[in-house]
Structure formats: structure tokens, C-alpha cells
């Protein structure tokens, strides 16, 4: 079974974070929420594994 990866994947984590932040620069709060929703869908499909997605949702809920 595939497991959710929680160990670092990006050699340069700062660059990945910066990219996400930049995506949200200069847009309204509503646009930002909509962008996040589209991103979640795109990335979920890229993962393509319900078990991994479920683990990710659980982790996200737990951390909040």
C-alpha cells in the first residue's frame, strides 16, 4: 500500500513554499480560496490514490 510521504520531497523547500505564496499574491481572498480549491483538485488527481488522499486529509485535519 502506498503511504503518504511526510518526509521532505523538495531539495529546496523554500522555493516550493515561495512558489505557492506567489500564486496567491495580488488576488482577493475569494480568488485565493478558489485557487486553493483548484490546486487541491489538480494535486489530488495527480496523486490518484484514495488511500493517500485520505491520509493527507486526516493529517491536515489533525494539524489544524
Amino acid at each position: 500500500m502506498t503511504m503518504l510521504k511526510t518526509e521532505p520531497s523538495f531539495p529546496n523547500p523554500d522555493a516550493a513554499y515561495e512558489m505557492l505564496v506567489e500564486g496567491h499574491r495580488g488576488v482577493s481572498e475569494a480568488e485565493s480560496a478558489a485557487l486553493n480549491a483548484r490546486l487541491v483538485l489538480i494535486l489530488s488527481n495527480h496523486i490518484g490514490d484514495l488511500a493517500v488522499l485520505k491520509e493527507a486529509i486526516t493529517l491536515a485535519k489533525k494539524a489544524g
Partner: protein
Amino acid sequence: MAERKSVYQFGYRRSADQDSKSPVRRPVVIVGAGPVGLTAAIDLAQRGIASIILDDADRIGEGSRAICFSKRSLEIMDRLGVGERLVEKGVTWKVGKVFLGEHQVYLFDLLPEAGHKMPAFINLQQYYLEGYLVERAAELPLIDLRWRNRVSAVERHEDFVRLTIETPEGEYKLDTDWCLACDGARSKVRDCLGLKFERHTFEERFLIADVKMSADYPTERWFWFDPPFHSGQSALLHRQPDNVWRIDLQLGPDANPEEEKKPERVLPRLKRMLGERQFELEWVSVYRFNCARLKKFVHGRVIFAGDSAHQVSPFGARGANSGIQDAENLVWKLALVINAEAPESLLESYDLERGQAADENIGHSTRSTDFIAPRTKQERVLRNAVLQLAPHAPFARGMVNSGRLSVASEYDSPLSTGDEEVFAGSAKLGLPVPDAPLEDREGRHRFLLQALGADFELLYVKNGARPNVPEGIRLTVIGEDLFDREGLFMQRFGATPGSAFLLRPDHHLCARMRRYDGNRIRNALARAKGLAK
């Protein structure tokens, strides 16, 4: 709800049973002359079993009820003798379009392949279907249809059911070995038995209008999210015969149903949608949808089918279509039990198979309703994200859910014998077999499903002599009785010479093998009749 005008009118007639001193005993009484009850009665009669249908009304009324009848329902109706009439009157369609605002985001084609007798869907007002079924029932002397016979009490006994029935001439009692409760979402029989029907109600209200107009829209199902004419909500437009169009407008949870039904509210909404076209309102009502099911459909000698057993929201056309399939699943089993060819326990498979179907239908219609009417602001954001992505990314099109339209249920059933070999093709264990265009011995075109009988059937692909099939099975040899000129049978069944396919009386595939094996067939037949140890 508005008063329904009557489309077909029938008369009450006194039955001799009403004059009997003690209750007369009958083999089968069906409560409710809707699509489900009529299907059951006709199928039973075609299997030689008499039934009485009781209905509290004396007419078939108009009104916005079922309009979409699926390929599977039409195949069943064809076996009952009204399929071609339905298709002729109905509006055939298979393409659906989904719009976000003014832009199309998604298109689906429900039957992309040829070589099937029945189309993916027809649209037809439910009253036509009921009218045709009533006429078909009238041709069958084994059916006794009693209008204005209202069941008021149900008494369960060990091996029969006693019904109290009210008529314009007073009350009478009737005993029946089997009582089929096909009396709809507000089932009286279910109430009499005190059974729980736990509902999940959706808050959202919808306006449903049937509108008469001549319009040049194509014969497709059009669904809008956030259309310019009905901002922030959803809308559906779908054609029916006689220039009638079904329009479905989402109103939000706070809409007042009494106010929203008034012409001064309805007409401006429709004008925004239809523009300058002339139209007349045939029917309008405001609904909230429920999903519900009985835990068990079989309660001793009382058996529930259709909306009395389960209820769904309308997105997906899973109400009437699933009820018709309930009836077909039940009837061949009940006929075997009544004829003492199968144990009563066979009926548990009805409960199981149609229970699976009900869960599937409720799941689909719940997910569709959640997509169409998101419950929270964030759900709406996520829903809109799917719609925004759909034109750009194929994966998102698959998530667009304006109703997953009814297809035949695949039964994970103890009546099936597991495969020992691998088969390609669209035929699957537990599913009804796919249709295919064939030719008979005289060179006439014949669809497979037309050629099938009403009992267990073995489809054998010629490879030498005709096999000697066990009693109770009808044999059809492909390559001798029917010819597969186009090769579509072989392709759809993943067949090779010598392959054998065992079909149940409802044409669901229950066993298959690459080489005919009399013992395996005998065991598979016993298993499908509920006789397996």
C-alpha cells in the same frame, strides 16, 4: 401540490370477491397500479401466474413525475410487450451537456456504440408509460385490475396476508399468499406494518415545471450551473413528447413553496430562461428531495418494490427505473417459488440484489444532489473549482456531477457462479447481458435480447454438436440458431467457439465457461435457483 388533471380515466367495478362470506384467497395481490406494480403483474401473467392489482385511484394523472426511462427499463418493457410503443412515442436522447454560466464545460454520450435495439434513454411522461402498461395488462386475462380499491389494513399471517380493502361500495377482505407493496413513497402497506423509513431530506428546494412550447433546442439534456438567466443556482432543460419541456430550477433552501408555485413568480423566472418564446405551463410544483430505504424489502409474505422500498432524489433518473428493475428481479424468483421449483429462501436474493441497487442509487443521487446544491460556502468553492477546471483538464470533467444517469445494476450475488477463466468484453457476471445485432436462420435481422426467452437460457457458441442442456434451460446456439455476422456478439461476450453463457430469466449473466461442461451448468443452475448447499 396542484390538482392533477386526469389523462386516462378508468371505472370502478364490483368484484365477486366482495360478495364472498369469508375472504377469498389469491396467489398474488399487488398494491399500486404504478409502473412497478403493473410491471410485476404483466411479468407474472406472462409466467402464467394470476394477480390482482389494487389501486386507490381510478385514473392516471398528469404531473411532473418520472420522465427519463433507461435502456434497461426499455429492454424489460420490450419483453413485456410495450417497449417499441414507448420508443416510438418517446423522445430518444443520449447526449447531455453541462454549462457553467454560458459556456459548455462538459458533454457526455451515454451510448456511443451501435448494435443495441434500445436507446440509452427516452423521455416520456410517466402517464404514457402507465397508460400503455394498463392497456397491456388488459390483454392478459390473468390480471384483475381493481380501481378505487384502497388498502386500509394489512394483517400478516404465517403463510398468507389478509388485506382490508375500501371501495365506493364498502369494505371487503382478501387473503393472498403474497402481497407485493408497490404503493409508492407514501406506502400505506409500509405504514400498516409499522416499518421505519428513515429519510435523509435535502434542504434545497427545486421548482419543477413542464412547459409546452415549440422550440428548436436539440434533443439533449442541458444542465446549467450558475446560468445567466438564473444566477447562482442550477437549471435543467429536457425535452418530452408533445412539445413539452421539463424545466428544473434550483431555488435555494429558503424558498417558500407556496409562493414559488404562483404563476406571478413562476412565469418571470421562465421568461428569463426562455426569452420571447410563447409557452404554456402544463404543470408546476416545488419539491424538496428525500433519500430513504427500508432495511429489508422482504417481510415474510409482504414484499416491497419501487418507491415503497427506497426513495432517491431525481438527478440520475433512478426512481422509476430502479422500481421497474425491482419488479423484474422479484417476479421470476417469485414465480419459481410459487411453482415450487425453488425454495422460498430464493427471495432473500431479491432483498440482497435490489438492496445493493438501492444503496448504489441512493449513493449516486446523494452525491449528485450535493454537487448541485453544495451545503456550505466551502463546498461551493470546491464544486466551482471542478467546473472551472473541466474545460481545461479531463480529470475534472469526470467529477462534474449533474446526475449520474441510471444504468443496470451489477449484482454481487450468491446466485452467480464465479468465473474460472478470463473473459474480455462488456458482458459481466451479475450484469444483464449486452445486446448484439444477429441474424436468424431465415436471414432476418434479430437483436439478441429479442431472441431470448423468459426462462433460464444457455447461449452456446457453436463448436461441433449441440450440447444436451439440463432440463429447465433453453438453448440457443450462436452459429446455428442465430448468426453473428458482424462479430459483435463474440466481441461483447469475449466469446470463443465452444463458450457457454448461462443467463437468468432476467437476462443477468450468472455463469460462463470456455467449454460446455454439463456438470458446471447443472450446478450453476441450481445455484441461481437458490438450491446450492
